[in-house]
């Protein structure tokens, strides 16, 4: 039963991943990738890491939808009217993909895996939290702040109009001259 489930999920994840490059619609490609990720999340769940598995589902759904929107954003051609090739730099990427696959698969098969010592913690979610937040607290905090700073920085760099454009150099304009108003403030 477990093996069958594993095989099914593994096949789905690989096949869906491969199909990403066979379909000619960006939407289908995106959601095939999502299917692949969901199968991987299923595999993670099978290891008993409930929290991680569910978080992968959560993040990947949001991520893929946002990605779909970004890929197709402002392209008001619903349902992928224009069949388009999903390939760029075909040869280079084929080489990279093959090399990575061989390296990873070879590693997985050839490494002399250690025998498990000890038993899993009774509450894996708790154990995960503790291992992340006790020993690696500083790492995680730095990581979080760095990621957040990256997001903010990207938005600042990408925004065409900042607050000084909207509200004047002293930020004292009573009203911005935005065309569309947000829900708060000026």
């Amino acid at each position: 039963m477990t093996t069958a489930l594993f095989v099914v999920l593994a096949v789905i994840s690989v096949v869906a991943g491969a199909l990403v490059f066979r379909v000619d619609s960006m939407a289908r490609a995106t959601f095939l990738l999502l299917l692949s990720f969901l199968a991987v999340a299923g595999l993670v769940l099978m290891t008993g890491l409930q929290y991680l598995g569910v978080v992968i589902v959560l993040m990947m759904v949001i991520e893929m939808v946002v990605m779909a929107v970004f890929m197709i954003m402002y392209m008001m051609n619903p349902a992928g009217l224009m069949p388009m090739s999903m390939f760029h730099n075909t040869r280079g990427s084929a080489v990279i993909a093959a090399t990575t696959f061989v390296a990873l698969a070879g590693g997985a098969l050839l490494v002399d895996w250690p025998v498990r010592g000890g038993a899993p913690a009774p509450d894996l979610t708790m154990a995960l939290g503790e291992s992340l937040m006790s020993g690696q607290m500083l790492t995680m905090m730095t990581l979080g702040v760095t990621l957040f700073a990256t997001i903010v920085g990207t938005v600042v760099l990408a925004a065409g109009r900042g607050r000084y454009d909207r509200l004047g150099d002293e930020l004292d304009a009573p009203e911005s001259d935005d065309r569309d108003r947000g829900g708060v403030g000026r």
Partner: protein
Amino acid sequence: MDLRNALLRVAARRPHVLIIGGIGTDRLRARVEHEVDRRHWTNAMAPADTDVLVVIGHPGPELRAVVDDVWATVPAPRARLDVRNEHEVTTALDDAVTVLQDLPAQRAGAPRDGLRWDRPSDPSGAHDHHDAHDDDTSHEQDTGHEDHDGGHHHGGDMELPGGLAMADLGEDRDGLALDQLHVPLGPVLPEWPSGLVVDVVLQGDVIHEARSRFVDLDDLDATERLPDAARALDSAARVLALACWEGPSARARGLRDALLFGGSSTARVLEELDDLRRRVRRSRLLRWMLRSGEAGRSELLEALDDKLLSARAAAAGGGGEAPVAIDLAALDARLVGAEFAAARLIVAVADPLPQPARTRPTEQEGAS
């Protein structure tokens, strides 16, 4: 078979009704809407959601083409009615139920090869007429707007599977190069002025260019208009419905019907009108929603309030000022740069009277 009949009968008990009419059908439309509401039926939002298609008045050739296109996309069981005057409304709707329940007729009449809608703009359906122009020149004498079709940039569009047009590229209001889609809005859209079509160029859901016109303007002089009070209420009801405030919208519509068809005393109508106006003015959320421009001012909300106020004045018997007729060029200018939801509200507030379209299409009004 019996079970199917029974199912059909239950399903037909509360049909969704889509009303299509050209210019000058406002009173008839109000009558049909009134009857639909009285029966606790529902007004359909789009052809897909329609059981009964009611064509009111005498649609001209362009609108008739649109109606045929819309009808082709209405799923069975379905009924199509032509209502030419107010006396026919009740019996026509009764007949519709009979038609909806008639299994053999529904089977025979169902679109066979699956329902197909065709261009991206579908709920309006007006685009097909453009095709008619392209394919069949004999159509061209019937309307006065060939210049639009000719001047419209279909050139350079790539032909795609299904005969669809590829979007072309252009600068948006922020200076980014984005896809542009040419879509006609109307004449079949919920809460849309009768007979109006706005040909827009969309980028995302922002309107880049707009050109409005009325379909089938031939008998403009014979066009019947609603009395001022009813017209103002009709327009206010549309604005409220587009703000998805269904209760007050239905109340405004009910007041319109009371003014048009009687049913309650003027004093009571005035009282309810005051009540409605108070609610609209007091809603902070509506103010927040409709706010635009400076210092919390809301042009839309003020326009809405004006409508209710003028409706009151007219209903009370005072002369009331005649509604300010907005011309189509001004409407087009307002629409450029507006986001879709805002654009719908702008059209509903403007509520233009039937008038000939601009003769010379001004290009690049969006570039300003």
